[in-house]
């Protein structure tokens, strides 16, 4: 691999390199990597292939990259999902690139393969959401008889999340309606410990990821991105509370459900 030793890559390779760096950055950001990792990985790839005067600036929802002899690029990454498998693979690829083991063409092909990594099949996600809800319902003191209800509500919740994603509902509204749905089902179904079932099934909606990302961004000194994530976490927590609250008020007034 001579590309590392070349002082300046030829213009064509430069363009390809720029595409590769932008592609890797976008993929990382889209799949739930923190700002610092995106920045570091893009930087490592660019420098490993002999990119000169590389400057990269990454935000929660966008990235900028400039390189000697290339047009400065900007990418807008509005929607981020979480696919940690892709993040892991790109991380491993960047490590091999840094060691000088991957020719540029191979790196491009590998990145295509990583972008095409399938998510967990839908039934697997439904099962995982149901199992997770049931486990957390038990963890917070739920009775054995309620595990079945938590499984059912967790599965319905994941199906709702699929539907919301397909309709393109925004995140806040999705969480609000999702929390409302959980509470409504728990009220209607004959659960013994309604509180525990609701709490367990709310866990997949809680902003654990946003909170963790926010902390990581703050530690790495990316205060702007950390603030965006923190607001995200607070809004999600607020909308969950609102969703549950609205349904419980409605149930209390319409159905006369008496809360213990």
């Amino acid at each position, binding site marked *: 691999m001579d590309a590392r030793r070349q002082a300046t890559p030829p213009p064509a390779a430069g363009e390809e390199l720029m595409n590769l760096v932008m592609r890797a950055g976008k993929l990382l950001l889209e799949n739930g990597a923190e700002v610092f990792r995106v920045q570091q990985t893009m930087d490592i790839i660019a420098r490993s292939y002999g990119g000169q005067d590389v400057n990269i600036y990454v935000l929660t929802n966008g990235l900028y990259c400039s390189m000697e002899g290339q047009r400065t690029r900007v990418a807008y990454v509005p929607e981020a999902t*979480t696919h940690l498998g892709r993040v892991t693979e790109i991380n491993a690829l960047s*490590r091999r690139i840094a060691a000088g083991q991957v020719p540029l063409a191979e790196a491009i092909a590998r990145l295509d393969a990583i972008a095409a990594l399938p998510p967990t099949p839908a039934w697997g996600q439904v099962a995982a959401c149901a199992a997770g809800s049931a486990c957390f319902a038990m*963890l917070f003191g739920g009775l054995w008889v309620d595990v079945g209800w938590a499984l059912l509500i967790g599965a319905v919740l994941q199906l709702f999340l699929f539907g919301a994603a397909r309709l393109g509902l925004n995140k806040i509204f999705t969480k609000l309606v999702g929390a409302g749905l959980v509470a409504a089902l728990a009220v209607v179904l004959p659960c013994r410990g309604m509180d525990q079932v609701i*709490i367990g099934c709310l866990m997949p909606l809680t902003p654990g990821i946003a909170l*963790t990302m926010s902390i990581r961004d703050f530690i790495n000194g990316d205060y702007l991105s950390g603030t965006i994530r923190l607001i995200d976490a607070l809004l999600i927590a607020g909308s969950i*509370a609102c969703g549950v*609250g609205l349904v419980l008020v409605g149930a209390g007034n319409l159905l006369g459900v008496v809360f213990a």
Partner: protein
Amino acid sequence: MSLPELLRQLLISAGGTWAFAILFHAPRRSWWACALTGGAGWLVYCLLTAAGASSVTASLVAVLPLTVLCRAFAVGLRMPITVFLFSGIFPLVPGAAIYYTAYYFIRGENALFVQKGAEAFKIAVAMALGIAFVLSIPLPRRHRRSE
């Protein structure tokens, strides 16, 4: 807290964390490690609350060994630390406190509503502090890139 009960708590929290690792599309070979971090964090939390600690203190302390474990797995399995941290902290996320905040709000019990809301916020801050503390300790140079 009795030993069988602790074991039961460990298994359930590990199971829940495992499910979340699948939900976040974590690589298959990291699932057991995610489950272990989640279980370990919850175990420490249980022991501390059983010993009389508040949920905030327990969250703060429990997140320390959890994050240490995450870093160890990140280096050992050569994966980003986020893989383990995302799913591992879920048992400690204050989902119950968020729920009770809404619950007491609609029941009009304002004192309890404020108390639960503050508790949810304090737990989140405690977790943030704990994670930040452990992540801020620098690694030896030869391991630095491996997280």
